[in-house]
């Protein structure tokens, strides 16, 4: 069965009277959001998928759309949700919180749950709307921390777990002194805090640290500060161009230390781009979808992972990376919640909170009222990036 994918048209300039009408309509919708939460079409369930198809987040968003489409197709091929087909209504937030809010407003009343946006900023921006409409929002960014009992969920593993796994692995390898360099954006600061906390737990010392702007084009000074305490390894908690600048700086300074970075860099396009400047040892904490083949997992998990990876490769001609995995699981989980709640949109939150031991490709999910992420430390391993490929090295 095929799915109906609708792209919301880009906003067009409208005459003042129409624009005024739109403002009134938006206000009315915002104030009466609770009553507008159920999708208007009873013959199918509709998920609103908001991703970054353009802008800074498109590195993740394009893959997320592919992963979500694959999940919907597989669900429909198995008979849909409670016998009804699952539809996807998609929108591009242009990596912009304001656009994310606009697209969410357009979807209220016609979708049964939201999946996305791709980035933490837009996720934070849409949650008040989703909450007022009593709609689940499965944010695809790991960078948000959902409040207990809220309507917001967050994808993938928490930063604290990634940091603890990484430092514990290094400790097991005899590395107890690390340098830390990170960007001054929300993701970098979150990572730096997680590394510092994990260091205290694992008995590893952060012997030098420095921060830099995400748009910096040189980090010589910061690397000098980071390595002043003669660390045995470096943590680069930044992603995209900022991480590339740091790797190039490490290469230019002739540093031969093992380096670790954030899972935000787990896209093959990026790894290929930095291939010439990848440190000899580049480690990344990663969820199960990156190392399932190299570890003993249950038969059920093996089947799920193989079905996902093979079908993704056949359909898109590339291996899935970070984006497709979180979106694929997001759709599976939300669909299960809708099924369990028998289509009761407001009841889907409680249904999703009650899911335990559900296998996804990223990991095995067990949610609770105070755990809207569901992924644990067992789902995180350490992979090594070499020549644009990833190899499991430990947990």
């Amino acid at each position, binding site marked *: 069965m095929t799915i109906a994918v609708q792209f919301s048209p880009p906003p067009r300039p409208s005459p003042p009277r129409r624009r005024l009408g739109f403002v009134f309509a938006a206000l009315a919708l915002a104030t009466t959001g609770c009553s507008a939460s159920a999708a208007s079409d009873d013959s199918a369930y509709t998920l609103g998928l908001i991703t970054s198809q*353009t*802008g*800074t987040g*498109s*590195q993740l968003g394009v893959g997320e759309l592919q992963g979500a489409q694959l999940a919907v197709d597989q669900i429909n091929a198995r008979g849909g949700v409670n016998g009804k087909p699952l539809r996807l209504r998609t929108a591009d937030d242009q990596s912009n919180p304001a656009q994310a809010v606009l697209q969410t407003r357009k979807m209220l009343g016609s979708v049964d749950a939201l999946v996305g946006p791709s980035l933490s900023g837009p996720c934070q921006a849409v949650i008040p709307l989703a909450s007022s409409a009593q709609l689940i929002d499965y944010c695809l960014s790991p960078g948000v921390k959902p409040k207990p009992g809220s309507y917001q969920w967050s994808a993938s593993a928490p930063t604290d777990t990634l940091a603890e796994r990484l430092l514990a692995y290094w400790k097991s390898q005899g590395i107890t002194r690390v340098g830390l360099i990170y*960007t*001054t954006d929300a993701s970098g600061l979150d990572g730096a805090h997680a590394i510092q906390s994990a260091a205290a737990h694992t008995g590893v010392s952060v012997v030098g640290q*420095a*921060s*830099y*702007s*995400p*748009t*910096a*084009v*040189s*980090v*010589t*000074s*910061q690397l*000098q*500060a980071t390595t*002043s305490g003669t660390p045995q390894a470096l943590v680069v908690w930044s992603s*995209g*161009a900022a991480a*590339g*600048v740091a790797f*190039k700086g490490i*290469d*230019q*300074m*002739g540093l031969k230390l093992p380096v670790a970075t954030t899972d935000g860099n787990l896209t093959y*396009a*990026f790894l290929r*781009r*930095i291939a*010439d*400047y990848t440190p000899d040892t580049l480690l990344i904490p990663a969820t199960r979808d990156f190392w399932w083949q190299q570890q003993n997992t249950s038969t059920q998990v093996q089947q799920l992972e193989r079905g996902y990876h093979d079908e993704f490769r056949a359909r898109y001609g590339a291996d899935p990376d970070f984006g497709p995995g979180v979106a694929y699981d997001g759709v599976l989980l939300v669909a299960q919640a809708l099924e369990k709640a028998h289509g009761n949109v407001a009841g889907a939150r409680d249904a999703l909170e009650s899911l335990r031991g559900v296998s996804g490709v990223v990991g095995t999910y067990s949610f609770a009222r105070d755990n809207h992420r569901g992924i644990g430390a067992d789902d995180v391993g350490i992979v090594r990036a070499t020549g644009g490929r990833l190899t499991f090295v430990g947990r």
Partner: protein
Amino acid sequence: MSGLIQVLIGGLADGGVYALIALGVSLVYSISRIINLAQGGFVVLAALLAVSIQQWLGVPPLVTVVIVVPLFAVLMAVVERLVMAPAAARATPDRMLLVTVGLLQAIGGLLLLVWGNLPYTMQPFSGDTAITIGGVRIVSQYLWIIGALVVTVAALWFLVQRTSLGLTMRATASNPEAAALQGINVGRIRLIAFSLAGAMAALAGTTVIPATFLQFSTVTPYAVAGFIAAVAGGLGSTAGAVVGGLVLGLLQGLFSRYTSGDLAQVIAMAVLIVLLLVRPTGLLGKTSEVRR
């Protein structure tokens, strides 16, 4: 001590790029009274174009300089004729600032559209070689950046001080109306100034891309750094642009070593603002430039 010298060398390399951008801003300002904030955008555009040319043609990275620099001299002349000159005929110089901001945004959008949001880099001109002296490692590409700055300053000095074209440029910079009454084609001089600024942007972009990763979002930091360097050095002053750029790079490097990333930017800017309060003309600017 070697650590501090390493920081200063990195700061000088960054400052060299800022100085090249500031030179273009300053040259255009002195001739046209337009502060071209888009200069930093052209630097990134040239850099990414150089990467693409290098990949398409498979030529050594250094060869891209020979291709991109004249190309951008022509491109900037076209921009001057199609955008700047018509806009300047209708708008005051301060409103032209908005036009150049719009141009900067347009360049950022074009970069995102054509090159996407992945970062780009290129192999260094002399390969991954570095000189190590007393524990201080000097990357060969840094020498190319400083070399490009030295060649640009020398060529500009020769053009302005030793040629008849330079004389007419100085006359136009000093008083465009008087120069026009003397029979100087001010429009042509303005075209030449923009064209030279385009070449400088291309030189900055092609020499810095092997030392870093650039993408569409890098246009703003370069635009801001180039503008600040030009103003701090003294708008319209060639020597001021060079000094302003190098000082800004060194300050950012030094403060980044001892403070957090964001604080380093703020402190470097604060020092330059205090400088402008104490000396409104900038380090080497003339009082007449401020009054005007």
